[in-house]
């Protein structure tokens, strides 16, 4: 019987991310492959650039079913909570409504054009993402599979008077009925306001800005991916 680990996430986990690095393509292992080496396991990495948590959830779960007898551990690096994924015949199309530039306005315009209704509210985003996180944890427990989760970056930063502040999100999440039921989640509850952290926080703290691929590409570079893998592996084997 082969031992398999299944990993999920966005561009922070996607095995092909280095090929699209800016300003030029690179070639290095991402954290899922490094954890596979450390654990001596085959890795099925479902990470995909642009994915939100709906796509991450279903992609990981589909692989769990296909490898149910051999799965040893599931690792999920959850992505931004505002992303919305739409299932199409060729896979998921995801909106990534960022605050910088005009991405948020473009997303709102898309929602109005497509459904004549606005983009979901923060409370709706929190409820839906908490459901996915809690569901994955419950399923792994139900199936007797080890599970480790982490948050890649800030879930939903809010723009207040030109500053990105986590306070509104923190206020809403601390009231959520599931906040104390989340287990095996490194850095939970993700925000330093609440005593938690995400992967970008960890990288900033440990490496300053040297974890980035380049000034124009804010994805973790080779050194940073090794750091992430060692931190997650250490957490999951404690």
């Amino acid at each position: 019987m082969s031992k398999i680990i299944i990993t999920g996430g966005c561009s922070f986990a996607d095995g092909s991310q280095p090929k699209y690095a800016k300003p030029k393509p690179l070639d290095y292992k991402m954290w899922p492959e490094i954890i596979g080496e450390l654990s001596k396991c085959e890795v099925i990495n479902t990470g995909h650039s642009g994915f939100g948590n709906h796509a991450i959830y279903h992609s990981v779960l589909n692989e769990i079913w296909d490898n149910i007898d051999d799965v040893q551990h599931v690792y999920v690096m959850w992505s931004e909570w505002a992303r919305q994924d739409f299932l199409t015949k060729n896979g998921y199309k995801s909106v990534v409504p960022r605050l910088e530039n005009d991405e948020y306005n473009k997303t709102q315009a898309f929602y109005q054009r497509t459904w004549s209704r606005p983009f979901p509210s923060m409370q709706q985003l929190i409820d839906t993402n908490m459901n996915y996180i809690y569901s994955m944890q419950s399923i792994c427990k139900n199936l007797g599979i080890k599970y480790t989760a982490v948050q890649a970056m800030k879930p939903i930063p809010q723009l207040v008077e030109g500053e990105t502040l986590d306070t509104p999100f923190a206020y809403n999440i601390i009231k959520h009925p599931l906040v104390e039921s989340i287990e095996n989640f490194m850095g939970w509850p993700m925000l330093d306001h609440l005593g938690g952290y995400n992967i970008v926080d960890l990288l900033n703290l440990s490496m300053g800005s040297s974890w980035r691929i380049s000034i124009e590409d804010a994805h973790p570079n080779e050194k940073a991916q090794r750091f992430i893998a060692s931190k997650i592996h250490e957490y999951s084997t404690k």
Partner: protein
Amino acid sequence: MSKYSKIIAGGCSFTDKDFPKFASPNPLDYKMWPEVIGEKLDCEVINTGRCGFGNYAIYHTTLNAIMKHKVDHVFVMWSDWTRQDFLIDSFASSTRMGGKAGGDYVSLHPFYWGIKESDVIKWYNESFTKNFPHKHIHGKEFTASMPNIQQLIDTNINYIFSMQAICEKLNIKYTACQAMENDRFLPSILIKHPYLEHIKNFYGWPMDKKLGGFTMVDLLKKEYKNAYKVSEEDAHPNEIGHKFIGNKIMEYINV
């Protein structure tokens, strides 16, 4: 005294307690199956069913209710597996392509009466290719079309198993069933799903007659032929139909 104090019911128009008000040709007033069960169990019912919902919306609204209430039993009547729900920030009354109102969701019914498949494909392409706010991040741009049956089966099984697993984890009794069939549904694909045999507490599983299962509509047709329908123009279950469904689910849970 009943051993139940509160139950949750999730579903689509076959569950929505407001459905009779919108019956065609005339509004009606009767209890839906969750309320029939609630009466029998002498307990409070939190009915999250909403007309138009697909299983993505049913999953999240039911789960949100589970997290907010201490309940004894969760009942879910899953809807048409081809429906696609989109989370939006307001109550929607209608949308293009036969989408139905659904509170936090707009739901697309790709095979709803009178909707052409070519129009659905065109809507997908316009929405998720032509008008999409982002270019595909990596790799080739693709023309977005509606999901295929394999994708729909995988996604729906994920919701069904997830609900079962969460109720087990929280030690809440759980009962599921399938409201209706869809003629696009392919039992030959469902039967190959690796977790088909692990679905539990699902009345009529695996839903399709060819696989030895049934839906609620199958049960109603067998018992009443067409007499379970609200009217010729409205194929939802009438009062007799809902009493029958409530009684059948009660028999199944054997309380």
